[in-house]
């Protein structure tokens, strides 16, 4: 059999394995098999490619593969709390690869680039380069190397869309006149700037949406690269990745109550600007000590814990596991209610809680848990704020009105662990805290949960 055919067969198998890989990922029971299928597919495709007779020199390929592995291993071993920034960084690497290959392909082919080829090549490098810098910016913000506060200025969207418009216009000229090679750097350079500008107005709470969107762009740019190289395998892998990012972006924007077009054009962080100036509430709240909180929890039959990014910041997930153990030991039903945008990327809370050994069948998403709050004795909110704000349901003047929330206020008692009465990310007052059934537990999430656990242990002797 000619080598060409062997290569094609490895690609065909890799494609099938990639699809199976995602299919098996659907439930935790088969998910690890999915990773294995993906690995085998990748191995086959890379091995097949190395057989390609057109390759005349292997030295640099081997060096690069080894170097990539050396960089990749530590990136695969980061702490679970660092997964969002690692993910952003890997989007940047993927986009870098696509942009570099696209750039080289242009200079190898120019000036004889047919219009359609030039169009997809432009799409490849425009999406690739804006994803590269955008993801680096997102990773920097998540790692707190860069300031996390959104930076906004007048006419921001105008400047950003203008930049993108210029890049697309230059690409249009290149499609018509591929011999104008001196224009090519513009369709790499301008999107690189755009990527930075796009992330500047993004704050921490928008990160789940942004990461999903960058994921989608990275996939689409890889698919465009597949068009350029006429590789079915690459088109398919890129389309799968693009579809995944797209679905997650739509989920996230729904959970944030933002229209998808609003998200697509990078108009993040616009709404909270006015809200922060709202009148300060002076109503009183009820607070409780760890002893009182432990007493109420011990008397409950059903407890729902609602974790948010504050839990991750306080590194409280292991203490929460101890609380879970202490309560389940007493026969109390404990579940976790996870909002889709809790944390800094889709599914972030689930990973942190799974790492703390909390069984995944106790982790329920918003739609599954909301029906259970009326039968819940205690809803314990740890480091979450806006996703529990009942104003989203009842107050049409609230900036987050219409955003789907966890209905913790329907539980018999609500306990909120919080550092102080400061407003949440969106700068919006949370009327939940002023309800008669709400007890505020002021303190660091990790210490407070630890104190409750000690009280529960002491009372049990």
């Amino acid at each position, binding site marked *: 059999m000619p080598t060409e055919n062997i290569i*094609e067969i490895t690609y065909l198998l*890799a494609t099938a394995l990639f*699809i199976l890989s*995602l*299919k098996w*990922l659907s*439930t*935790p*029971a088969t998910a*690890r098999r999915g990773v294995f299928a*993906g*690995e085998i*597919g*990748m191995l086959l495709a*890379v091995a097949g*490619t190395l057989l*390609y007779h057109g*390759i*005349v020199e292997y030295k*640099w*390929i081997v*060096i*690069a593969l080894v170097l*990539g592995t050396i960089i*990749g*291993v530590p*990136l*695969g071993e980061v702490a679970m709390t660092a*997964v969002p920034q690692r993910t952003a960084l*890997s989007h940047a690497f993927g986009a870098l*690869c696509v942009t*570099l*290959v696209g750039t*080289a392909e242009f200079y*190898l082919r120019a000036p004889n680039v047919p219009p359609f080829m030039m169009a997809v090549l432009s799409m490849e490098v425009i999406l690739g380069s804006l994803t590269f810098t955008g993801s680096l910016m997102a990773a920097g913000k998540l790692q707190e190397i860069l300031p996390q506060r959104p930076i906004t200025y007048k006419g921001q969207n105008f400047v950003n869309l203008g930049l993108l418009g210029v890049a697309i216009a230059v690409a249009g000229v290149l499609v018509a006149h591929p011999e104008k090679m001196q224009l090519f750097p513009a369709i790499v350079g301008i999107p690189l700037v755009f990527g930075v500008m796009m992330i500047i107005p993004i704050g921490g709470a928008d990160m789940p949406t942004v990461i*999903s969107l960058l994921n989608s762009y*990275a996939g689409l740019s890889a*698919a465009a*690269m597949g*068009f350029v*190289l*006429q590789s079915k395998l*690459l*088109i398919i892998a890129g*389309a*799968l*990745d*693009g*579809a*995944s990012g797209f*679905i*997650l972006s739509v989920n996230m924007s729904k959970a944030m109550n933002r229209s998808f077009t609003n998200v697509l054009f990078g108009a993040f962080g616009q709404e909270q600007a006015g809200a922060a100036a709202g009148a300060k509430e002076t109503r009183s709240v009820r607070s409780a000590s760890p002893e009182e909180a432990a007493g109420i929890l011990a008397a409950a039959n059903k407890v729902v814990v609602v974790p948010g990014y504050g839990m991750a910041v306080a590194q409280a997930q292991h203490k929460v596991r101890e609380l879970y153990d202490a309560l*389940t030991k007493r026969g109390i039903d404990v579940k976790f209610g*996870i909002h889709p945008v809790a944390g800094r*990327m*889709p*599914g972030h809370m689930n*990973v942190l809680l*799974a790492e703390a050994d909390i*069984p995944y069948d106790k982790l329920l998403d918003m739609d599954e848990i909301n029906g259970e709050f009326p039968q819940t004795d205690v809803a314990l909110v740890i480091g979450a704020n806006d996703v529990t704000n009942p104003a989203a349901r009842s107050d049409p003047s609230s900036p987050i009105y219409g955003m789907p929330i966890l209905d913790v206020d329907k539980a018999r008692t609500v306990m909120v662990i919080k550092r102080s009465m400061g407003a949440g990310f969106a700068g919006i007052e949370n009327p939940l805290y002023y309800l008669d059934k709400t007890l505020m537990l002021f303190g660091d999430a990790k210490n407070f949960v630890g104190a409750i656990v000690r009280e529960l242990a002491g009372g049990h002797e």
Partner: protein
Amino acid sequence: MKLDLLTSLYVFMLAAFIGFEVIRRVSPLLHTPLMSLTNALDAIAVVGAIILAGEYHEHGALLAKILGTIAIVAATSNIVGGFLITDRMLRMFKASGPKKP
């Protein structure tokens, strides 16, 4: 095997449909591993980079070699890191077994 434009579009469209149907079924529980896994699979772009870096080019050989090599490094780190971390995350997801007193 060379593809024409229309065939490429068909392949893209079908793959996008399959992607939507398959990924829609992924439990929200696993959305973080989903993202790291699709990211690793996406790094299949390495095959393009390998050919770019290894093939004979009459003009622009140096450029192709330099950019291709960097691209292989970037994609390989995504493959290795992406699969590793996805598996590490998935190993942590355990169902609640029989309770021990």
